[in-house]
């Protein structure tokens, strides 16, 4: 497994674990007035920053061990990366319709912000899965 494929696996795991942890944290601390009344901004910022830090640290650690650790990115890696980002763009473009509609309907900020976050997370996950499939099966 190449270093970049390992990174795609890390991105996929982080794209699942962090949003799930964020959702659990929100649900556990939900106020009596409903989850939409909860203070989501702090946990969301922590989730976004945490995911970035986790990806960087895990990527560095994964790059220090195993075969392919010293290999530079080549044309296939770049092509797979482009494919993943291309698909992620479309996933996020479609997912962005939800917060757009919510904003038009003047829904609570909670739902607008969280549907945006869900869109980011989905795009990150799909991008990683596309890259992993491309590495495994070819494209």
């Amino acid at each position: 497994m190449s270093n970049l494929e390992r990174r795609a696996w890390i991105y996929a795991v982080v794209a699942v674990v962090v949003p799930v942890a964020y959702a659990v944290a929100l649900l556990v601390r939900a106020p009596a007035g409903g989850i939409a009344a909860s203070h989501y901004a702090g946990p969301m910022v922590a989730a976004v920053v945490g995911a970035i830090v986790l990806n960087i640290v895990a990527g560095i650690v994964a790059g220090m061990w195993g075969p392919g650790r010293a290999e530079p990115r080549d044309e296939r890696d770049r092509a797979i990366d482009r494919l993943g980002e291309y698909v992620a763009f479309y996933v996020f473009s479609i997912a962005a319709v939800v917060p757009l509609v919510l904003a038009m309907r003047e829904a609570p900020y909670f739902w607008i912000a969280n549907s945006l976050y869900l869109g980011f997370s989905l795009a990150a996950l799909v991008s990683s899965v596309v890259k992993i499939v491309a590495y495994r099966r070819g494209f």
Partner: protein
Amino acid sequence: MGKPTRVTNSIRALRFAHGEMTQQELAERIGVTRQTVIAIEQGRYSPTLETAFLIARVFAVPLEEVFQYPEEHA
């Protein structure tokens, strides 16, 4: 799922015909990773035209001896 490309290649045979050249050695000579050479050999990745020419140059053969594309039958 079938192979993502109809292009076939003779890289494995050419490597063995050239002193059992390793995938790593070929990768280093054409400037890609060993994983990419493996993917090309197995038909999981079609290299760029530039890399295809580089592979042919390593084995000192025309491109058609390295890569083949099936004939269309009407």
